[in-house]
């Protein structure tokens, strides 16, 4: 923060989509913050995308509608965009650019931090291995989230990902430690009703006091969405690495972020990549996802759960495809389960947490966790095969053991997967349901669990 201000330029050469081209500019810097002033005196924020030959291309976050070439001024502020941070941000609601949206004044800042963050030194990264309890059985039991992990949720249009996101935000906690826990929730391009739901849901559950909300609604300018995940992560990094908190960052919906990126890319007339997204989509997404992790010698951690809706439920679409390359697994929501009314409709056969093995077991969850989870995964996979077979030969053509697996599939979906939106299950309760499913199988079908655990927890036959 400096006392020197920036120069205001009034020669606007062109306004194209979300971009403003300013002429005769000297000393502008890449990423520099720009205040664009309309003829009515309204100020909009933007940043420098390109400089050279006396021109600067400015991306206006709040859109360019209503701007005219003759009556617009661009003030180059002389610094990059910064987010004021302090512990006071907890319990606050901000808009997509980090401005208060709850009718309260700006937080008294402890620091002003560049929203682009600093890349984590790979050498300094600590391998994530501590369990986060979300209270959602299917996640805790079979796709376990670990502190410092980035685990996206791949959903589809109209599915219940936002309910799940809000439930995780309300219920998530770290077990077995007294360390502070916080949730940073960034809603990117969501409907007003959804944004209100997130806010109310956190307020009414009492979880707001440990949360920070960034709400960019669908009627906010699309370009603002480029900034929303970055301000959210800036706050998360401050809480984690300066204040030593374990921070869970939920970003929903990253598809809207990628759409905004495509809009800017098209306006800049860049050569489009797959489906019109810019060729640097992977690199850009990585600048967000790679801001999750733990650092050696620092107490806190940043865990990310980005949520993205796959256009036409297409998992090979560039956004989920490139996201999957960067993140450590994925939670996939299934349309079939959703249509059956199952909540959360997680398709476990397509889901995976790559770091689960290191975050569960003795000392973190329970010694039998990994084995019972594998056994249930195997049984559910077999149940799906049997269901497909029954579709051809009919139930009468199935063997007794096939019928047992069908039952297991039904119990899995009705008792384990299905959960009320306000039901917070402990890991012990989750493991209890997993064992209930395993107990429906004859003992000789249990091949993935050690005998000592079977003797202790199996309740069948």
């Amino acid at each position, binding site marked *: 923060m400096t006392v020197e*201000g920036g120069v205001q*330029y*009034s020669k606007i050469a062109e306004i194209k989509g979300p971009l403003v081209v300013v002429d*005769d500019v000297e000393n502008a810097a890449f990423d520099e913050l720009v205040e664009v002033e309309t003829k009515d005196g309204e100020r909009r924020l933007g940043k420098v995308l390109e400089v050279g030959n006396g021109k600067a291309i400015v991306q206006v976050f709040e859109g360019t509608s209503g701007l005219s070439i003759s009556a617009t001024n661009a003030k180059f502020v002389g610094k990059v965009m910064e987010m004021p941070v302090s512990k006071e941000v907890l*319990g606050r609601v901000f808009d997509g650019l980090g401005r208060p949206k*709850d009718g309260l*004044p700006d937080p008294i800042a402890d620091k002003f931090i560049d929203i682009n963050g600093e890349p984590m030194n790979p050498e300094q990264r600590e391998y994530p291995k501590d369990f986060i309890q979300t209270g959602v059985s299917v996640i805790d039991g079979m796709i376990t989230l670990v502190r410092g992990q980035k685990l996206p949720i791949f959903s589809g249009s109209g599915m219940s990902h936002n309910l799940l996101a809000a439930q995780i935000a309300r219920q998530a906690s770290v077990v077995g430690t007294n360390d502070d826990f916080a949730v940073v929730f960034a809603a990117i391009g969501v409907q007003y009703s959804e944004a209100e739901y997130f806010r109310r849901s956190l307020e009414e*559950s009492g979880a707001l*006091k440990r949360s920070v909300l960034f709400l960019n609604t669908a009627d906010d300018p699309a370009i603002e969405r480029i900034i929303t995940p970055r301000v959210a992560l800036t706050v998360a990094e401050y809480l984690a690495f300066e204040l030593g908190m374990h921070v869970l960052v939920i970003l929903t919906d990253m598809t809207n972020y990628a759409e905004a990126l495509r809009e800017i890319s098209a306006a800049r007339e860049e050569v489009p990549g797959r489906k019109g997204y810019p060729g640097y989509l992977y690199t850009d997404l990585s600048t967000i996802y790679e801001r999750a992790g733990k650092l050696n010698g620092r107490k806190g951690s940043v865990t990310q759960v980005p949520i993205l809706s796959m256009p036409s439920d297409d998992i090979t679409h560039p956004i989920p495809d490139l996201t999957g390359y960067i993140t450590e697994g994925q939670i996939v929501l299934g349309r079939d389960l959703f249509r059956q009314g199952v909540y959360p409709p997680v398709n476990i056969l397509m889901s995976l947490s790559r770091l689960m093995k290191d975050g569960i077991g003795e000392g973190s969850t329970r010694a039998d966790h990994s084995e019972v989870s594998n056994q249930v995964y195997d049984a559910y996979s077999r149940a799906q095969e049997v269901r497909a077979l029954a579709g051809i030969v009919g139930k009468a053509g199935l063997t007794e053991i096939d019928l047992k697996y069908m039952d297991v599939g039904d119990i899995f979906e009705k008792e384990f997967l299905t959960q009320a939106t306000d039901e*917070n299950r402990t890991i012990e309760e989750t493991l209890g349901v997993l064992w209930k499913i395993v107990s429906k199988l004859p003992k000789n079908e249990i091949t993935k669990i050690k005998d000592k655990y079977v003797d202790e927890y199996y309740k069948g036959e």
Partner: protein
Amino acid sequence: MGRLHALASNSSLESTIDKILKNTEATILSNIKTALVDSQKVLDDSIPKLEGEYDKIIADGKKEADKIEKQIIGSADIEARNKQLMALEDAVDKVFTKALDQVANADRSGDYSNLIKSLLDESTQILGTSEIIVSTNTSDKDVVQSNLSQFPGSELSSDTIDCLGGIIAKSKDGAMTFDNTLDARIDRLKPLIRKEIASKFGVGE
């Protein structure tokens, strides 16, 4: 004869009735016994079930109570914090207003001329030219005018601006403007000044 036959038939009927009654009684008694044993068994079986249900209801109730307690405490904390924030902001605003009043009414003689000179200096450096048109407020007009001679090519605008003090410098071609009024400088520093004031109230230290 007929009467004798009727008597014999009555006694055999009675004995049949007795037999049936006895059999029925035995069946009923046996059924009652079985039912008693069964109900005892059901009762015995249901005790642990009931205890389990009872424990579950208690656990669920405790969970719900914890949830409600968290909600109440969370909402109360947020409400209290919000009120504190508003109170603090009020206090900060009061301090700010008072400080701005003092700046607006500051003595325009002595060091103030040096301040204007340094503001002009800074503005010409940032704009990269001294070919500028300078605007200021009514009370600073004379001080600015007296300093402009040191900046060849500069001139004072006949229009005055509404500000606490300081200047706005505009290149003569109108392409560049630099706002170096005290208002703009205070605005840029406002977050830091707010922090400073808040720390006097014991916040954010």
